[in-house]
């Protein structure tokens, strides 16, 4: 029982990342009808926003400490960050410590900007082109983006820690009456889950309760009619693209402490997030979120020893197996409308 609760927690957490990426992907698909293979790259860039802020905060000047020597036997250069000199060592250190949460603010304008540039500069010209062309050009873009990141940051993962207060884990087991250590969960992952819930809620609220959102939803349902009403739907769609990029970026920023960011993390998530979108139903926002969490939980269950001993290798294929079963039995996905993207 405790093992099952534990895996549900794990699944919800894995699912948070899937859901956030799939949400952005669905926003772009639903509004613009574009299959965006560069969406994983946006997630990756988000994570690198956190890395970059951490680096910026760590910009430092060197002083020479003659009492110590470096690996070549020369006097050692000691680095002191500007942040620490400006704000004093304690405040400075805690600012650096809080780099990842601060990166949320830092990343939003960057991601929206990247989203705008992408949509205006590239995607716009591909609305009328076949999906295959969209896939190819966004795939090319994804390669270019990740290679640029690799050029500047290297291929090695870059550790980007959470603030010290969120280190360690929380013991749910004790709370629920199990033994100590039976169900523990890292604080930062709880933060991530809560954060994902807030973002999902915010996106839904935005679409549901603002005029802007209503126009966009109408546009998702029937672009031509809305266009006929004299509303400039294109401009709104550009903004939507920016928002989707920001959602992916934020998912990446907060993911940085969970796994050290590297340049190909976007590709690792790309295939998965497409599977999530299709399982949820192309173009369905609640579907994307639901499928994200569902697949996260299933993946977690599949990695349990009890299950792996019956079905060896099941954790390697569970996601794809689920996708196949869903597509064969319910082709529109869990919550999709019928007929979307059939051709």
């Amino acid at each position: 029982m405790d093992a099952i609760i534990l895996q549900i927690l794990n699944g919800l957490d894995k699912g948070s990342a899937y859901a956030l990426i799939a949400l952005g992907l669905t926003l772009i698909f639903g509004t613009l009808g574009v299959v965006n293979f560069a969406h994983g790259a946006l997630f990756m860039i988000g994570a690198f926003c956190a890395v970059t802020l951490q680096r910026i905060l760590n910009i430092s000047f060197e002083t020479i400490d003659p009492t110590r020597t470096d690996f070549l036997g020369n006097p050692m250069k000691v680095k002191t960050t500007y942040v620490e000199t400006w704000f004093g060592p304690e405040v400075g250190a805690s600012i650096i410590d809080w780099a990842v949460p601060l990166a949320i603010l830092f990343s939003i304008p960057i991601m929206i900007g990247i989203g705008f540039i992408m949509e205006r500069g590239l995607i716009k010209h591909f609305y009328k082109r076949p999906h295959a062309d969209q896939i190819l050009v966004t795939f090319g873009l994804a390669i270019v983006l990740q290679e640029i990141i690799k050029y500047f940051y290297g291929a090695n993962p870059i550790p980007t820690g959470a603030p010290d207060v969120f280190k360690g884990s929380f013991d749910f087991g004790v709370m629920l009456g199990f033994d100590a250590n039976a169900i523990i969960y890292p604080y930062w992952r709880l933060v991530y889950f809560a954060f994902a819930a807030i973002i999902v809620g915010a996106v839904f609220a935005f679409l549901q309760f603002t005029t802007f959102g209503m126009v966009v939803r109408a546009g998702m349902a029937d672009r031509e009619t809305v266009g006929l009403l004299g509303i400039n739907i294109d401009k709104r769609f550009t903004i939507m693209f920016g928002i989707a990029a920001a959602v992916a970026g934020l998912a990446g920023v907060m993911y940085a402490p969970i796994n050290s960011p590297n340049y190909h993390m976007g590709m690792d998530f790309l295939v998965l997030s497409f599977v999530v979108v299709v399982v949820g139903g192309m173009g369905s926002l609640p579907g994307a979120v639901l499928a994200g969490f569902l697949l996260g939980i299933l993946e977690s269950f599949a990695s349990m020893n009890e299950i792996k001993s019956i079905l060896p290798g099941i954790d390697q294929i569970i996601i794809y197996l689920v996708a196949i079963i869903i597509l064969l039995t319910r082709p529109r996905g869990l919550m999709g409308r019928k007929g979307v993207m059939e051709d």
Partner: protein
Amino acid sequence: MLGLNKKDLSLLLVVTFLALCAPFILNPFPTDSSLAQFNAGYPDLMQRFVIFGIFAIGFNILFGLTGYLSFGHAAFLGVGSYSAVWMFKLLSMNVLPAIVLSVIVAGLFSVVIGYVSLRRSGIYFSILTLAFAQMSFNLAYSVLTPITNGETGLQLTLDDPRILGVSRTESGGIPVTNLFGLDMRDTYEMVVGPWSFQFNNGYYLCAILMLISFYLAIRIFRSPFGMMLRAIKSNNTRMTYTGLNARPYTLAAFVISGMYAGLAGGLLASMDPLAGAERMQWTASGEVVLMTILGGAGTLIGPVLGAGFIKYFENIFSKINESVLHTWFGFMPDGLEDLVITLVYPFVGKGWHLTLGIMFMLVVIFLPGGLVEGGQRIAGLFRRKKSGDDANKSTQSTPAE
């Protein structure tokens, strides 16, 4: 001749000429010159050009004609390779049974996967094929290691129980793949002044099979069957309401292209008896999609061009390192040399992916019909210069070229 019209026949003849003379054409630079870096006329790369050409030709029969975008074709290539290596291990080092088996096994595999996946269309079909291929890759890499030798890839060993033939040669090595005694890796080297050209048995086997595949693809394109496939891509509704069942047509196309992939996989293993699981990864499937679209989906020659283009980048551009750049730009004054190298360096060597990504984007943005369209535009420019208006007519009535 050969049941082809004049235009197709001349295309086939051009391709035949290019394939047979590839050792000359691909080695235009003298061996010792600094541009020799760009020479591609060595056996391994030439083999890859034609083998991936076969793969892309087959993929194009499915994607170019029916519009079904499979993201799992690498699985068939991988299955073909595994079957071929097993044939070498168990039966004989002759490539013929290995290639035959790899085509058959890939065909059976594609019947199963195609039957299931073709129940859906559009992106759902793509995701289904992707899911099958990724499952195959993940399992081949781990749980199926007894069959696939996992991470390392399936290789020949000195104690393979080969029924026809020896486990090890007299000199104690692993025997070489051959076609009735003709060793696949034998190369004849011809030196002409500063040039050297390599003629490799394996390459010519691959080239001949590629030409046969290409010829069959032309026949399929021009056949009533090919017309049906184009009709499915064009309008599946009308197809159905014309009393035709689209599914056996698409399944047949799927299986044919799966067998082409199996042939390519079998040939890869015949040239170099190793079958790695990475061959089945989704990125490998993506690569053939890129080849086809880059060259020009639905055109006859496009996929071959696309395959050559990508393999050239992978094998030639990735080998340009800093010291090579220094020899190229050594004639410049120091400051300028460093500047040029700083500017060029990100795009070559370890940056070859970046260049490839940029090329994809440029081609897709400016040449929606792929490289073939680029060629047609250039040809169009010339023709327009020569004679005013008959250029339009001849391009118009050949939608499937």
